[in-house]
């Protein structure tokens, strides 16, 4: 190798190194503002929240380290926490029901039916609505005196007297779940519809030639290929459900009693109604871990590719 060639070969890596450094600097400088905001508004509060969960603190009073006392109270002495936790899990568990309905609707509006675009729009309309508006609509629907559901139930002699849906320990949570599912239905349907349209038609043709009936085609082709979309729906639906503070706040405010209390409403009440920021912080830590576990579980179940679009 000539001296000049050797020099070039030495220069090239240096040049490439410099170029990659420059690129890295550029990338980090673009990322820096977002990361800074993320650090300031997410990571630091989260860290402070963890510290607070081990302290006794309220505004205007100095913090005192109390170890695991807040956690001990939560797990051994607080019935409301357990009820809120079960309600939260119940709402998470209701997400698949909404996804199943949305899957059926998506299959319908994916077929060649007349006016399918109108149906798609109508079903999707619930999603962009403000949650507070959704809550008010459903609160009226379930109203004991002037609600549409009671009116229909009594008109068809399904109920002898008005049912106080949102004031009933039995009915309040299912009612909130119905409202939540209704709002998310449009979103689920669009995601599933997108997934359906990426499934190659030739797969169905081949299966049909092989004699597979429509149910088997759905079971063997549609469902497996929709898996990433379905899990995406589940993860987003689950996150939306467990954080549906506004829906519950407006519809029931967690009542009657604590029948519709979920962790996020309970945390709010503890912090701002009872000034127990320290204890609320401890529940927030548990809530965070719960969300982390459920999201991780869902991602694992989907094979680690939630939201991925399958290509042939």
């Amino acid at each position: 190798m000539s001296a000049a060639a050797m020099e070039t070969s030495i220069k090239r890596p240096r040049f490439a190194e410099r170029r990659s450094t420059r690129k890295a600097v550029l990338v980090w400088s673009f990322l820096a503002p977002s990361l800074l905001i993320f650090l300031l508004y997410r990571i630091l509060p989260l860290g402070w929240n963890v510290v607070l969960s081990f302290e006794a603190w309220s505004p205007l009073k100095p913090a005192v380290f109390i170890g695991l006392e807040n956690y001990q109270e939560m797990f051994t002495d607080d019935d409301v926490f357990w009820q809120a936790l079960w309600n939260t899990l119940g709402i998470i568990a209701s997400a698949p029901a909404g996804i199943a309905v949305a899957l059926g609707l998506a299959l319908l509006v994916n077929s060649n039916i007349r006016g399918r675009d109108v149906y798609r729009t109508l079903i999707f309309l619930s999603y962009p609505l403000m949650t507070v508006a959704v809550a008010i609509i459903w609160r009226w629907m379930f109203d004991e005196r002037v609600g549409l559901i009671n009116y229909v139930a009594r008109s068809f002699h399904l109920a002898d007297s008005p049912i106080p849906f949102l004031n009933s320990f039995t009915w309040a949570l299912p009612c909130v779940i119905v409202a939540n599912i209704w709002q998310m239905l449009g979103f689920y349907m669009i995601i599933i519809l997108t997934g359906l349209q990426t499934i190659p038609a030739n797969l169905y043709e081949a299966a049909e030639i092989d004699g597979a009936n429509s149910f088997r085609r759905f079971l063997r082709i549609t469902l497996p290929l929709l898996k990433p979309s379905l899990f995406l729906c589940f993860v987003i639906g689950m996150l939306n459900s467990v954080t549906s503070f506004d829906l519950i706040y407006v519809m029931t405010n967690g009542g009657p009693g604590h029948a519709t209390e979920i962790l996020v409403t309970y945390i709010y009440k503890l912090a701002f109604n009872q000034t127990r920021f320290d204890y609320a912080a401890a529940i927030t830590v548990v809530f965070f871990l719960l969300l982390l576990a459920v999201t991780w579980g869902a991602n694992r179940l989907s094979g680690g590719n939630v939201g991925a679009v399958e290509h042939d």
Partner: protein
Amino acid sequence: MDRRTVLKTGLAAAGSLAMPAYLRAQSNKKISILTWNIADQEALFKEEFEEFRKANPGVEIEWLDKKGPDLPAFYQTQLVAGTAPDVIDIQGALWVEWAANGALLDLTPYFHNDPAFVKMFNPDYMSAFVYEKKNYLVPFYVAKTLLYYNKTMFKEAGLSAPPKSFDELLTFSQAMGKGEKTGFLTLNFDWLYWPLMKMNGIELLTPDFKKPAFNTAAAAELLDRLAKSTASGAINKIAWTGRWVEPNGAFAAGTVGMLQAHSASYFFVKGQGRWINPDTLGAAQAPGDWSTPTNHGFGVSKSSKNPELAFALVKHMTSVKWATRLAQIRRVLTANIEADKAGLDSVKADDPLAYAVLRTQLEHTDKMTGNWPLANDAQIKEAFWPEFQNAVLGRKDAKTALADAERAVSRVLRRA
């Protein structure tokens, strides 16, 4: 320099020397005031502020109103941030917690300096704002519970007058609770149901507020009777499950015999119930004349940089002139004796029913209950209420519910 100029300068100098110290020091001072769900009175407040500004040149007033559920959270974040408003309108027992935590200014010295100001107010309403012998609020507008009754339903059930005892209250409820009709409803937030307990001699805590006092045989019997009456339909279940709109709305529908609620409910119920007129709706004291207040008062934040000026604004807004205007426009009582007299006089001719309702607010003010000055009132409420609810709705037997409530309340008291 001519004689006129000398005279003007001299007068200005004398005037400034004669001004109170806080007025001299206040040029370009800003006072912030936070009110609670009373944005509808913007026009009145603007007039009040204008007059205050004229009397206090250079003072700016920043007014902010927050809806009921938003105000506590807002004020707490402002406290933590060190930007609490100078003057705050507080409802219910929240002030006690803030006073105990050092967020509110002790107004006792100001009261001592101005006994004439204190004398303007009803002493019972005034004493409801005392914590550990210190005054923290000045009444802004006040309300307490009363018993509304549907005269038509009373007639149909052969009843002629409102109940005078708890036994009568249940018997009357039973007489009216048939089919879709129920006999009795109560609001339940902020201890508004507590007169039911008090009229049966049940106390929440021991006099020193150190221990629960409600877990007694009498309380178990009372809860049992309430549960039975609720199960039979004599008492409407919404009494124990609804918030504000639901019980008031149910009574406005004309199918409930009696409603225990504060005077503010009258205007909501009247707005919804076309059946309501002086011949069909009655207003009386609950048995035993017990009631629970839901008062609004003005406090001054301890962090205020201009506490003198802030208190001057409080005095201004609660003065006879402006309290009268508020009483007349909003049809409320203010605990300002003269203003309430004028307010009631103006209502008497226009709306005799409103007059009857408001008049109850000035009677038996010595028999107010459920307004204990507890720094952890919200926590005690949250510990007690779910178990009370469990008992009256038949989800737990009364003795178990009371024992569970006692455990929960004791835990809160231990934490204090």
